[in-house]
Structure formats: C-alpha cells, structure tokens
C-alpha cells in the first residue's frame, strides 16, 4: 500500500508555526521534565528523610570523583555545541560541515559514556554498590537513567549519521528537521546533566 501523506510533516503549520515532529518532541520533553522531576523530588525527599549531610546522607564529593565528572560536564556541553553547529550547517546547505560536526557530537557522547563507565568501575571497585546506601542507590539510578538517555540519543544519531547521505538526498528539508528534533532531545539530556552534576557531586 502506498504511504499516505500526512500534512505538516516537514512544513510548518500556518497557525501553530511548527511542523508535527517539533510539537511532538516538545510534548515528549514535557513528559521527560516530569520524569526527571519525579527523580529529583525523590532525591530531595530521601535526603531530607535521612537528615541531610548532618545526618546519614554522605557528601557526594567524599565518595565520587568530582574532577572526572567536571571533565564530563565539559564534554557534554561541547557535544551540545557541535550538535547546534551540525544543524546550522544543514540549514546553510553545507553537508560536509554537517557530517563533521555531527560525527563529533557522537564521538563526544561516546567519550562521556566511557568516562562515566570508568567512574562506575571505580565505585564498584571500592565496593560501593546501589544496595550499600540510599545515597548510592540514588546516585546510580539517576546517573544510570541519564546514561540510558545518552545511549538512546547516540543510537538515534548514529542511525542518522550512517543514512545521512540517502535521507538528505531524498528530502533535504525533512532531514534537516529530523536533526533539529534530535538536537532538541540532545540539549535536554545535557540540561539534565547540568542539574545532576551539582546535586549529586557537589551539594
């Protein structure tokens, strides 16, 4: 059966000013805000319940590797920048630049995951498991779920990276939109880390 054509798939709706996928990703991100909102709320409740750092709650910096996490923060912010540049390159029709920036985004994300993996390895090496304390449980869960979001983003971006030539040749405008949508997701995931880092490692 022939694919039917959905209106406003790649063009902006005259009234709302967006194409479908852009509205879709904003809605999805709204639900993500509540998702991570629930995680942060749980964190606050558990921490207050433990009496804060004056009580049973350890100070993140005493257990976790702050320099590595700082480095990772820089890595992730850079990847957000290359993501914007890759989309901007497509917008101005420079496909080669897009590929460079987009490849760099994926590379930086993998670097982030590698560093995160090293951190986990070190924690486990020191016998700090999720079951050890509620602080560690929260730490593993929040960063773990965040890492899953990164992995998902890498998978989506990798797909677009390998099929970029074909998709761009077929429907350049639609492909540009897809990169924009992937970018919105990526910035959100970065933003979450910007909150996670101080909350878990510094406060």
């Amino acid at each position, binding site marked *: 059966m022939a694919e039917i054509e959905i209106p406003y798939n790649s063009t902006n709706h005259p009234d709302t000013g967006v194409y479908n996928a852009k509205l879709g990703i904003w809605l999805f991100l709204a639900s993500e805000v509540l998702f991570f909102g629930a995680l942060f709320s749980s964190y606050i409740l558990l921490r207050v319940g433990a009496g804060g750092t004056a009580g049973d709650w350890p100070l993140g910096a005493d257990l976790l590797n702050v320099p590595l996490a700082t480095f990772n923060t820089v890595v992730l912010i850079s990847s957000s920048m290359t993501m914007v540049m890759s989309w901007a390159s497509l917008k101005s029709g420079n496909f080669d630049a897009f590929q460079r920036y987009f490849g760099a985004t994926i590379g930086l994300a993998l670097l982030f995951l590698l560093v995160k993996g090293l951190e986990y390895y070190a924690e486990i090496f020191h016998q700090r498991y999720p*079951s050890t304390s509620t602080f560690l449980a929260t730490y593993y869960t929040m960063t773990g779920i965040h890492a899953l979001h990164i992995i998902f983003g890498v998978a989506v971006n990798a797909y677009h990276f390998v099929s970029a030539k074909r998709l761009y040749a077929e429907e350049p405008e639609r492909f540009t939109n897809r990169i924009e949508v992937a970018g919105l997701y990526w910035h959100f995931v970065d933003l979450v880390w910007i909150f996670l880092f101080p909350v878990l490692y510094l406060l």
Partner: protein
Amino acid sequence: MGELQATHAAAHEAHGDHAESFIRKYVFSTDHKVIGVQYGVTALVFLAVGFFLVLLMRWQLAYPEQPMPLLGGLFGNRMTDAGVMTPEFYNQLGAMHGTIMVFLGVVPLAVGAFGNYLVPLQVGAPDMAFPKLNMASYWLYFLGGIIMLASFFLPEGSARSGWTSYPPLAVLEPGGQTWWLIGMVLLINSSLLGSVNIIVTIVQLRAPGLQFMRLPFLVWAQLVTSFLLLLAFPPLEVAGFMQLLDRVAGTSFFMPTGLVVDGQAVAFSGGGNALLWQHLFWFLAHPEVYVLILPAMGIVGEIVANNTRKPLWGYKTLIYSVLFLGGMSFIVWAHHMFLTGMGTAISTFFQLTTMIISVPSIIILTVLIISLWGASIRFSTPMLFALAFIPMFGIGGLTGLPLGLSVADIHLHDTYYVIGHFHFVVAPGTLMALFAGIYYWYPKVTGRRMNDTLGRWHFWPTLIGLNGVFLPMFLVGMAGVSRRLYDGGTTYAHAQDVLWLNEVSTVASWLLAAAQVVFVINFFLSLRNGKKVEDNPWQATTLEWATTSPPLGHGNFASPVTVHRGPYEYSVPEASNDFSPQHQEST
C-alpha cells in the same frame, strides 16, 4: 494528497493484495483505523479476562472455604487446596484484576481504541500524525499485556500486592511483582507514544475551518486525557524503576530502616521511604481515574447530541470544565493517603482541592442532563447505555465526596465503600459509556448495525447486574468491612450483619456475566448478519460520518474536507434536514 491517495488505496484493494501485505495491512498496520480496532479487540479480551478473575474472587467472598464449582480442579495444587482457592491465589486475582481492568482493559479501549479510531476521522485527517509510532504504541501495549498475563504461570505466581503495589509488601513478595513492574514500564511507554500522537494530531491536522471551538466534545475529552497520560505517567515510571531496583538490586528506595518481617530484620540498607511510593503512585493514579472517565464523557456527549437531535447544551461550559478538571487532577492525589499521617495542613490542602474538583464533575453532569430537556429522544441502543451513564456516574461521583473529607474517610478508607465508589464510576459509569460507543460506532467500523433486540437484552441485565454487584458494597463498607479480605469478613464480629450482602453481589455478578454473553453473540453475529447501513446511519453531523462506512482504505476521506460549522447543528431552524453536517456548505 487526499483524493489521489485514497483512490490509489482503493485501486490497490481491488487488485487483491499480495500475501506479504496482509501482514502489513492487518497485523503491522500503520493505519489508525486498523490500530484502533486492534486496540479495541485486545482490550475487550482483557476486559473479559479481568472479569473472569473477579468471578472467581466473588465465589470465594460469598462462599468462603467452599470448593469452586467446575473450576476448582482447574488450577491445580499451587492455587487451590481441595478446590478452595488459597489466600495467595486470592491476592493474585485481586491485584491482577485491578491492573488488567484499568491498564489493559478500560484505558486501552477508551483511549487506544476510541481515540485512535475516531480522533483522526473527527478532525478530518488522513491518519494520526505519526503512524509508525502509533503502531509501536499498540505493540508495546500488547507485549506489556502478555508479560502481565504470563506472570500467572510463574512458579511463584503473579503480583499479589494489589493494583497499587504498595511497598514494603510489594518489594518483599516473591515472583510476579517483577514482571508486573516490567509490564507497567512497557504500558507506560505505550501510552506515552499514544498520547503524543493524539495531541499532535488534534493540534496540527484539523481540517480547514475546524477551529478548536468547533471540535466535537469527544475530541476535547481525548485531548485532555492525552495530556493527563503524558504528564502523570512518567513519575510512576520512575517509581516502577525504583521498585524494580529495590527488588533486584537490593536498593532501599522504599525500604525503611529497621524493618522486621517474621521476627527477622530484613537485609536492606534501609533509609528509604514507603510513602514515597504512595505519592508517586497516586500522582499518576488520580489523574488516571480521569483518564478512565473523560473519554467516557466524550462518548456520551456525542451520543446524547445525536439522539436528542439538539446541540449539546453548554458546549463551551463542558470544554472549560474538562480543562479545569484536567488541570486540577494533578493536585488532589493525596486524598488517597489521609490515613498515612501526612499532617493536618497537608490533609486540609488535599481536602480543599478534592472539593473543588468535584464542581466541574457536577457541572458536566448537569450539562448532560439539561441537554436532554425538552428533546424528543431517540431511544436507540447506544442512547440507552449513554442515558444510564448519567445517573450511574452521578452515584459514583457523589459517593466520592465523603471520601474526600478526612473525617469521613478515616472510617471509610480501605473499606468496601471505596470499592463501591470507584466501581460505580468505572463500571456502571465508564463501561456503560464504552458499550454505548461500541453500539454507536459499530456501523462506522463494519458497515453493519448491531442487533437492537439483543442490544436491549444486553442493556437491562447489565444495568441491573452492575447495580446488584456494587450497591451492596456501600452498605458492607459503611459497616466497616475492609477490602482485600480473603474470606469477605467472615471472621469479624462487625461484619456478621452484612455478610449476606456478599452473596447478593456474587449472584448479581452471574447475571452480569450472562448479559455479556448476549453482547459477545451480538458482536460476532452482526459482523455477518447485521443490517447493512448507508454512510451516515444515525444522521450525525460530525466528520467521521463524512466518509463511507466503513471508511475507504488508508487515508480516510475521498477528498479533503472543509468544515463550515460547529459540531452539533441539529434541528437548525429553516434547514432542510434536522441535521447539518460539519462539512456541508449550505444547510
């Protein structure tokens, strides 16, 4: 697009498609109509399963310690003891009945089936905004459902801590709870995809001329419902992950310090908070009850307008009410937790919001009643069910008020009164509306009508059966009998006077079961033998009737539709017909 695509699809059908595309067309289809029907059929099967589970429970409640007739031998030693169900099995039935009915039955039928099938048609769109995500949504739901069902066959059996899965109990129980959590995560992602799809479809794909204030009420109801699903489910997903980790990784999110079970300290680090689960759960589950009711209201609105041959009275009031209801439903959740010792200030806040949220519910009810005023009503089968919805929802809503006041709730909490309350809203309420919807849109989907005589034979016993099952529960609950008792209260002195009511409920549930047989027969017989209908058999005004019945292939409309008027222009003075369809230019 429109014309070309549709004729193309039709031509394709004429050729008779190749074998490969049978799967594309009916199994892994991206057509919202096929997906809607898939959702509908699957959900009906789950409703039947959930109903079967509760029939077993009702036997045990009315005749504790007596072997189940016929079925006693079926379940083997693990679940029954000399034909009598074990307490463990009773708990599994209870937990899975609730879960299946809410998450696998009613919501998939109300949103997955009716939303999927009707929203694109009613807004004049060729399909959902994201057809592939739509397909993924169905299959995630299907998988989640299979996992839930499969857990019955585990050596330890299924989840058994209630549909609410409160820890620490749920964390400590063996077996099926882990599967329950995995199933829930799949269902949550399914509904996430579905709700994004419905919202984008409504916002972006409305036909030219179809402003928001010309949308059928059902579309509004689905829009608000989708927002509730979108925003309320993520916290439960988080909670589900955390409970899963408590179970499999030994974390202590919900496990308090110093927990002792059977005289032994449990091996958890502690430091967790069992109430955290309750907050996260009810933050979803209160909005979820509006997910159960709003689509039902939408369906009833459509059917009332059509069968009174009048515009809905107070269309705008209805819309503002559901919007208000949707927003408020996020800040009432802790009225399920008055007995947890939250403190007076917090209790007061949630009592206040609960009283406030009752107002729009009553307004909606009032609007529907006033809409009936002075009409010459067509008592078609769908209309009977829709009419029954109104007082039944009324009983359910009004009995909620005392629960929302902590003074009364201290007595009533976790008694059969609560069970009576919410079943009145969901069963005689929502389910009646869903039946109404099935009878009303059956001709749209199949091109044939369901039999009216059988419809009446379905309607009256169902109405009587539902009331017979649930009315006694108010009395049992007010006498103080707790819910979730394996023997229905036999061993409690204060329950003795009301025990006979348990039997009333059980006998009524058999009547209810018999009535559903009539429905099933009618449903299947009418596929072949139902009276064929023309495209608009109910002389309705909304856009789903602007195409053929059943609608031609993928793409819905032969040519793009344009909308010229509001959704319910019935009996317009000076018009040539008593209905003026939305897409018709002149009356």
